[in-house]
């Protein structure tokens, strides 16, 4: 126990540790934090779905929870059930064998819901493209709000993608919108407990 505490003290706080902290990273963390506070009352839940990736994007998503990026400190939690999720983070081209599972996961996510497609494969089908085995880009299967390119996209880019998804579009009344055309929700209002938000 003593050794664990000693190592924790020696390691220090890695999040935004100066002088290595990238100013841009500091800025995007700040914006994410205030966006989540404003539009999600402090907690954004994300369900990740691997629809057919090479696993590179998963490595970077998992990196988001390391002490450097520390996504949980911003109020972002990865959840096991789509029924608990505000956002789906989808990686890979959608393999035809994952098409049904992805659709069911999307259908099980209560509205309002956001979808972020991650990586070149998620954006365009990537090097795998469309074929007998691959549906290609995520938006050919479910509606997508934000697509983040990269192979794989670095944690910083993923955070920017999440920030874009939760931020109001330019010129709007100030609420995030989902690509399904619904107004996402009213800022500051909490849904009545137990009742679905309409």
């Amino acid at each position, binding site marked *: 126990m003593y050794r664990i505490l000693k*190592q*924790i003290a020696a390691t220090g706080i890695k999040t935004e540790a100066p002088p290595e902290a990238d100013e841009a990273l500091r800025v995007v963390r700040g914006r994410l934090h205030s966006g989540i506070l404003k539009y999600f009352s402090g907690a954004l839940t994300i369900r990740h779905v691997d629809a057919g990736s*090479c*696993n590179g994007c*998963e490595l970077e998503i998992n990196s988001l929870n390391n*002490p450097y990026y520390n996504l949980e400190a911003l109020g972002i939690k990865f959840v096991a059930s789509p029924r608990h999720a505000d956002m789906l983070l989808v990686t890979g081209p959608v393999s035809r064998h994952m*098409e049904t599972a992805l659709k069911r996961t999307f259908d099980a996510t209560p509205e309002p819901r956001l979808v972020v497609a991650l990586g070149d494969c998620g954006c365009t089908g990537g*090097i*795998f493209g469309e074929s007998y085995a691959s549906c290609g880009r995520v938006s050919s299967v479910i509606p997508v709000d934000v697509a983040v390119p990269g192979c794989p996209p670095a944690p910083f880019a993923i955070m920017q993608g999440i920030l874009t998804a939760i931020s109001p579009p330019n010129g709007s009344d100030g609420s995030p919108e989902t690509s399904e055309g619904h107004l996402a929700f009213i800022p500051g209002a909490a849904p009545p407990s137990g009742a679905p938000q309409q």
Partner: protein
Amino acid sequence: MKLEDFQFELEPLPGAMPVWHARVSAQQWRTACQQVRDQGGRLVALWGADNSDRGEGYAVHAALAVSPGLVAITLPLAGESFPDISDIFPPANRMQRAICDLFGVRAEGAADPRKWLRHAAWPEGVFPLRKSFDGSTVFANGADAYPFVQVRGEGVHEIPVGPVHAGTIEPGHFRFSIVGEGVLRLEERLGYKHKGIEKRFEQMDLIQGARLAGRVSGDSTVAYAWAYAMAVESVSGARPPQRALWLRALALERERVGQHLWDLGFMGSDAGLAFGLAQFSCLREDMLRTNALLFGHRYLMDVIVPGGVARDIDGGGIATIRGEIDSVGKTVTLLKDIYIEHAGLQDRFVDCGRIRSVVAGRLGLAGLAGRASGIGSDLRVQFATLPYDRLGVRMTVREGGDVAARATVRVEEIMESLRLIGILLDSLPGGEIAAPLPPAPQNALGIGWVEGWRGEVLIALETGADNRIRRLHPHDPSWQNWPLLERAVLGNIVPDFPLINKSFNLSYSGHDL
């Protein structure tokens, strides 16, 4: 085993690794496999081919590892069946079923006739890797029924898990048969990530294929890229410069260290020690940032190319890496002691997910997991090609076969890889980092064979005209080990499954192709 023991002529293939090739008859196919098995060799890979556009029929190929090296045998088929070898090599079971899904050629006499990679994306009677099949054909998703083995009895329940899993992990299906919390049986179903990679390769030339090879299994991109480059250099006669080979080994060992750090962190977390994940993931992030700084990519994708490497390092880079291996080594030593002394962690690790060495040997457990169950096999030691023949790699073998043993092997391999990186930097030759790549002849066979961090990765390449790929089969060591995971969970409880699964950390994408 000596090459002369085989009853057919073997032709050596040029290239970095000791590889021979022969065309065999149906009878020689089984005899050769039995011989290899009896002499302690193993089946590395098994794949099909369609040569009907050349006036021949279908063919099956097997890559067998024997003490002199790799022997690749090709069996041209008169009809649509070939002799089963799953009784000789248990890992052949699923490989044969996959060949049947993709080519429509069956293993005669095989005990398990079920489909494997095919779910509902293409119907029965359609075979995507046949030359006559247009890869862009799309079928409506059909009905998909898979006959899992049913376990019946008082109090037996089934838990179906996946394909979408609770964490941030690849998709696959696990069907547990349980009594209470105890696992009576686990059956896997994979193939959810099948993207038609082998068919996609046939649309590419030898240069384009390198990018796809590095994305078969993203966490082993360096191993795959090197195996691909080896295969291409074998057929084209290119000889990468020495500096390139040293940099390739540097990249491969960095990938090994990075993945082992990652796995040790997650194994700690899966047993409830979040401290472990926090610490190991910081080390991992430090190394990824160094990779990005020095090689232009956090995971070193596209660094290894046919002919050499795409990025070089300078004196500053060397100094950075030296500092890094020193600090990573010190921290890993400290964390190892914390893990070993942590009673709660050891209570979870020890005796969990055990595969005894006699079972491992009989069922063909390979790679990292094999070394944790007493199977001492490592290409860097047994078939050391440049620069490994200068490094004196020390193989780590443990007999326990449990989660604790697989953790120990990772720790020891990290320390060994850090040592190897130091030697590579000390002995780094000067000169060019890439050699010109002559165009390859048509219908040439090239094999690449690399010890990735999970185990041996194999790329089998056959060239077409105009420097194009006629057929490419990438083999992931997960094919050998997935069936053994079903054995490892027996006698354990369901909550231990994530820990056992992570202790193997097998590839879904590399398997499904």
